[in-house]
């Protein structure tokens, strides 16, 4: 058996890459993708963590996360579209009318 810790370490790396992508990329769409990576990392923990207890429960949880991710993406992409219509840009940092 692969030790659980390996999965967790991998998920930490995926999560970290997601965080890094969110923090470093300016393209809003890529930032979304990074968030998806973070969610995937979480899912990995759900599944791996449930291995020794109740694997079905872990899957159920991950399922919910996927569903939520879908909902988020729907709204998020709609927002990107709307923003793009207004600003002709998908660079997150260009949206900074509100500040200070």
């Amino acid at each position, binding site marked *: 058996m692969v030790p659980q810790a390996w999965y967790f370490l991998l998920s*930490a790396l*995926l999560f970290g890459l997601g965080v890094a992508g969110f923090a*470093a990329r300016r393209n809003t769409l890529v930032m979304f993708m990074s968030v*998806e*990576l973070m969610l995937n990392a979480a899912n990995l923990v759900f599944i791996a963590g449930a291995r020794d207890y*109740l694997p079905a429960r872990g899957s159920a949880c991950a399922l919910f996360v996927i569903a939520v*991710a879908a909902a988020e993406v729907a709204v998020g992409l*709609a927002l990107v579209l709307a923003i793009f219509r207004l600003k002709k840009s998908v660079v997150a940092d260009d949206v900074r009318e509100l500040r200070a």
Partner: protein
Amino acid sequence: MLSETTAFLIFSAIALVGAVQVVTRRNPVHAALWLVGAFLGVAGLFLTLGAGLLGAIQVMVYAGAIMVLFLFVILLLNLDATPYEGLSVARGASLFVAAATVALIAVPFAQAGELKAAATADAPDLPATAGNVANVLFTQYALPFEVVSLLLLIAMVGAIHLARRTRRDEPV
């Protein structure tokens, strides 16, 4: 059949490479495609862990539906490769902090080894088959399941509201 370790190594390599590429590709279309790769890698890991149902859903919903949505939007907006974004001090700092975050999350795993807690290994071993998952979904998570339906519905309503074409006389 691959041994679990081999499978883990292969799928995790796919997932990591995909993830790194997502973060580093300048062209969003490329990034999206690499993301599909990462998702597939993770799906493979799910399989390795015995969560076949979830692996399938991962492929269908994530790699399938969600990514299509992404690509659809990218193409709709006719986005090209964004110009090189440069590495500003702020971004450097962000990356540094992000790395710190990873390290801080990863450290305990490296230390802890096995994470099993003493308590509550109460339930019988229920492998994550579709039937078992469904069982959990409709017993313990019955309410969340219903809630998610509303969530999806309202997300749809919201997305439609935001993204629909502007009527000429629509007020600002």
